């Protein structure tokens, strides 16, 4: 089984899981009293947000290790993680307004949390543009690593702005210092969804990594391993 096929299999598993999460969220999880059905988007929005930010941390860590070890695999992983992170940030930025319209009464507001996700998205896009703008593959890997590390350290600063800037966004429900204030059935659905998004992240990154291996082969004048 090639890496690409493995990636496809994992992604398929994740997508089936996503269907499962939605069946559970819509049919077997109680409807939130105030927000009604709009709250269901939470099970998609928050796990995607968690992985959009985590992917940036992986990009930064892979970059840091790349600068020491100069191992191409780390660079390929960082590039893959950044692309998948971009996709997840896009999911957050599209599901957010869909929820915001009925609950806040507006598609978009310059709330700190929205803004910080948008900035994270911009960091990702900048990272991908940088990779496209450097011709020399070794230079590209190093520059990408430097930007990835800076991006990783920027995330907490952007996150911290949430607490300093006035915000309309709901506060953290699960990932906060005190016990989660979500009812048990909702918490289970949420946890399952986080697990499913983890599988999706692994699946996407594996596929993208396999494609990067294929793409890198002609650059070095070798035959790709398939």
């Amino acid at each position, binding site marked *: 089984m090639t890496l690409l096929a493995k990636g496809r299999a994992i992604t398929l598993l994740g997508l089936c899981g996503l269907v499962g999460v939605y069946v559970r969220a819509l049919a077997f999880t109680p409807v939130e009293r105030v927000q009604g059905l709009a709250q269901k988007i939470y099970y998609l929005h928050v796990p995607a947000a968690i992985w959009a930010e985590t992917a940036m941390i992986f990009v930064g860590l892979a970059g840091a290790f790349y*600068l020491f070890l100069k191992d191409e695999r780390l660079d390929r992983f960082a590039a893959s993680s950044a692309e998948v992170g971009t996709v997840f940030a896009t999911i957050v930025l599209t599901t957010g307004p869909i929820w915001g319209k009925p609950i806040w009464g507006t598609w978009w507001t310059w709330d700190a949390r929205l803004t910080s996700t948008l*900035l994270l998205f*911009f*960091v990702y*896009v*900048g990272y991908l*543009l*940088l990779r496209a*703008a*450097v*011709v*020399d593959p070794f*230079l590209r890997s*190093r*520059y990408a*690593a*430097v*930007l990835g*590390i*800076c991006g990783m*350290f*920027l995330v907490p*600063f*952007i996150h*911290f*702005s949430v*607490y*300093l*800037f006035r915000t309309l966004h709901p506060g953290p429900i699960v990932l906060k210092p005190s016990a989660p204030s979500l009812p048990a059935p909702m918490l289970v659905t949420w946890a399952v969804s986080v697990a499913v998004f983890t599988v999706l992240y692994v699946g996407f990154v594996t596929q993208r990594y396999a494609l990067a291996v294929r793409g890198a082969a002609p650059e070095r004048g070798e035959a790709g391993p398939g």
Partner: protein
Amino acid sequence: MRETLREAWTIARKDLVLEFRTRTALLSAFVFTALVLTVFYFGRDPTAVATIDLAPSILWVTFTFAAMLALNRAFQLELEHGALDGLLVSPLSRPGLYLGKLVANLAFVALIEAVGLPLFVLFFDVPVWPVLLPLLGVMALATTGFVAVGTLFSAMVIRMRFAELMLPVLLLPFLFPPLLGAVQITARLFGGRPLSEAGGWLRLLAAYDILFVSLATLLFRHTVDE
């Protein structure tokens, strides 16, 4: 440590001497600042929006744009006649080279701000005298933060396609925390609020400076070495 600082001073002095001998970049930056401030004045309805409400944003957007100009030329300068290669084969340490460039850029941006601030006071009639000292402090903190990241990135973009476009695209997300902090503190100062009210933002700016100056000093080596 002492050696690094000495090297940094050598580089900074070289850049500043070069700047003062030609003066073209500096003069253009002054004119640019004055033009942006003028455009801002007419970019709003003076009967609907009080100047004082917009003043902090006008001040900081102008400074950021002007700084971007300064940063774009920081390493562009070294590309002519292969000057960068000369610097790199010289026995200068990389942290010394970075810190020197940082100091030169800071001096350049500080000069722009020194001209921009009086113009800003003149054009927008902002009561700046009572808060001059804290305002200068905030300007120093915020400028150090974004020039530190900008200097690092400007060393990378010179070897990219569309360098002038890539720098703002990569840098603007990183300018967000210092810019937001500076605008928030400036707004409180102009509003006659005590500085202690902005304690959180001040800590954010200070943490940003410490982290990104050290990070950029460490990472700079990877952006210039072959």
